């Protein structure tokens, strides 16, 4: 038994990446997920909205926020195109696997952004999807996909061969209600953001139920429509508590150790914008970034939508090899980065 005092959990804000755009090129438009390659490039999946879907793509930047390019452009059902992308994962060969809940398929692109292949079809049989959402890939290149409207998890090989599936609609342990995000920890266990059941469920890699975390609500330890989860090597769970517009962190035992509302600052692109648009900076200076709101505007989305630093639409949490946590905000077109204090 260690006599060392338990160190308090601390998560530090690092920086904000991104800004909104209406065109292809530098900028994000309803970013939904992030992936980091071994060479340190950051890939941002932009979902956009269906009225302007031609802006769907994966944008590529580095840690210094140079905009390096994009792929997956051109809204449509064809090879290399995306329609309603939800999530993105990298396999051991550093190929991107992107789920699309409109086409019910997984598209694979290589690290240079070239389309490789796509697989999947609409349905409820083995290997079929009804709204594939979250996706995670383990160390053995097994692919786990949250099959939203079939209320289940499916497991595949790296090439999309069906292995097994588990779940079913319901709220009992092991059942799901419109699951969204999926992640795998260093032990190979699978975590699922069970969206409409307001909880995170943990399973073995073959689908045996291990634990459930969270219940409906907005207090510590409670969740409202969680969309994603990431787990660090110590077993801390980082949850994008989407409906509560916050990031909640649970200890390996499931106790709430942090609830963050967000503290975004100006990104590098934002600073560059203001450097050449002083009139915009003046207008911004007259506005209140953290306004006091009337009582009837008190729901989390009311507050977040009017408060610049706060998370608005935090759909995804991802950890990279450096232990940096990327919280992707679909409604604010940016990513807030955090890191555990050493």
């Amino acid at each position: 038994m260690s006599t060392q005092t338990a160190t308090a959990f601390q998560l530090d804000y690092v920086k904000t990446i991104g800004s909104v755009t209406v065109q292809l090129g530098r900028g994000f438009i309803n970013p939904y997920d992030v992936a980091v390659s071994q060479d340190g490039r950051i890939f941002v999946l932009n979902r956009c909205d269906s009225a302007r879907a031609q802006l769907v793509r994966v944008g590529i930047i580095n840690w210094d926020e140079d905009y390096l390019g994009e792929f997956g452009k051109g809204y449509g059902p064809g090879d290399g195109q995306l329609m309603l992308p939800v999530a993105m994962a990298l396999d051991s060969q550093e190929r991107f696997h992107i789920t699309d809940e409109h086409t019910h398929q997984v598209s694979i692109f290589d690290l240079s952004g070239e389309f490789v292949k796509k697989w999947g079809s609409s349905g409820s049989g083995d290997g079929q999807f009804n709204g594939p959402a979250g996706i995670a890939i383990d160390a053995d290149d097994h692919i786990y996909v949250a099959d939203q409207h079939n209320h289940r998890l499916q497991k595949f090989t790296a090439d999309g061969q069906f292995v097994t599936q588990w779940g079913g609609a319901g709220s009992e342990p092991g059942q799901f209600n419109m699951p969204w995000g999926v992640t795998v920890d260093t032990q190979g266990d699978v975590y699922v953001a069970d969206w409409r059941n307001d909880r995170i469920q943990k399973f073995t890699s073959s689908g045996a139920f291990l634990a459930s975390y969270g219940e409906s609500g907005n207090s510590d330890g409670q969740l409202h429509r969680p969309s994603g989860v990431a787990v660090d090597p110590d077993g801390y769970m980082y949850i994008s508590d989407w409906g509560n517009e916050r990031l909640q962190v649970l200890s390996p035992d499931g106790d709430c150790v942090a609830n963050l509302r967000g503290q975004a600052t100006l990104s590098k692109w934002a600073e560059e914008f203001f450097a050449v648009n002083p009139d915009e900076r003046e207008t911004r200076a007259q506005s209140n970034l953290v306004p006091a709101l009337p009582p009837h505007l008190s729901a989390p989305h009311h507050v977040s939508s009017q408060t610049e630093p706060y998370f608005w639409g935090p759909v995804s949490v991802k950890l990279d090899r450096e232990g940096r946590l990327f919280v992707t905000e679909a409604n604010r077109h940016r990513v807030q980065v955090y890191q555990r204090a050493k």
Partner: protein
Amino acid sequence: MADKDLALMAHLMRRAGFGATREELEAYVAKGYEEVVEDLLHPERFPELDDTLFCRYYALGSTMVDATVMWHARWLYRMINTQRPLEEKMALFWHHVFATGWHKSENTPAMVHQMDTFRRNGLSDMRTILLDLSRDPAMLDWLDNNENHKSAANENYGRELLELFSMGVGNYSEQDIKNAARAFTGWTFAQPIPLYPYGYYSTHFEYREGDHDDSEKTFLGHTGRFNGEDIIDIVVQQPATPRFIARHLYNFFVADEPQVPAWQIEPPQDPEAIEAMCQAYTESDGNLRAMLRVLFNSASFKAARFKRVKSPTELIAGTIRLVGTHRFPEPGLHDLATASTAMGQFLHNAPTVEGWHTGKEWIDGGTLTERVNFAVNEMADVSKPGIQDMIQRLRAQGPAVAPETFVDTCLDLMGPLEMGDEARRALSRYAHSGGELRFGTPEEADASAARVGRMLQLIVATQEYQFG
């Protein structure tokens, strides 16, 4: 008797809501007309729509300019799926009356916030409604009240408040307008956080005392150091206010009236209905619920079937409710918004402060084509749940449905709808051309389903279908 109940209930739900399916109508009829009216007037009896489902599917934040299309689509989705139809219909009503256009501010969140305000207070009292309106940032920007200063008054909001939002022309003087404007100096909004770098933000009301003209003013015969609330207090006491609002309610819920500019010269077509609502207003301290209770329970309302040209919103929401799609987020929702805009109604974006011209002015050569083509296209796919339901109800009539029964049943399930002779003859001709409708074998069932789809397309292409 039951048929009349159903037709009456369908009429009520078309007016107080966006139409009802046959299954819903049967449940309402069982409940009883007066009780359904009370349910409509008390939306709080029913749960709010689960927005999280919609927001998961449609990543609605505050993107750029075109996000307004998606919020328009979201409102149509609400109309299709709400369990509080009158709450949504009243939000639409007030949007018609307090007509504000996104195209001036281009701030979508502010427009959405205005609609949420109408949802929240739409059935309350006139004082609350006008006070909330006078504090609404989208409205203040739309009518330049943020430029209404103690040192230099801007009369835009003061004028429209009297002319279009309460009493109507002829009930106040130019001096009243000036003094109302002065009373509202200082009523503005906080500078919203600008669009770059992270998207649009809404904002909130701000009262700047230093910019408020606190001097004595005379307004409609009263004198005092009036602020905005005082103006509203006086306005809601004027008999002209309920008369004006009641006529708007009549135009929106009962029968097409001439456009507002003509109201000074053309009297209401049903003065008794107006008077009954005015009385309810007076007895209830200006309560909209009380006025609507009188309206929905009146004989003149019940008799006013198909006396209004459907707005594009009503045409679209009503048709989609019939075919049963979009009961869950699905692709193609924003196409409904695009269709509505082509028909002349881009929600959150009234063309001018006069609002949309309604009644026959919805119809011109272009919009009529859009309206008919939209509805006809919606009926093309017979696999849609609502159309399948109609087909099953036809099948339930027996193994072979006679042509006239075919027509009668379709008209009944689509409304019940009333057809003029010419339209009725055309539908009968089509029904007779194929003989009995048979469902005995799979081939017969498929062929009959296709004929049903065709019949529904013919029905929605009639002139009669343009009325609701």
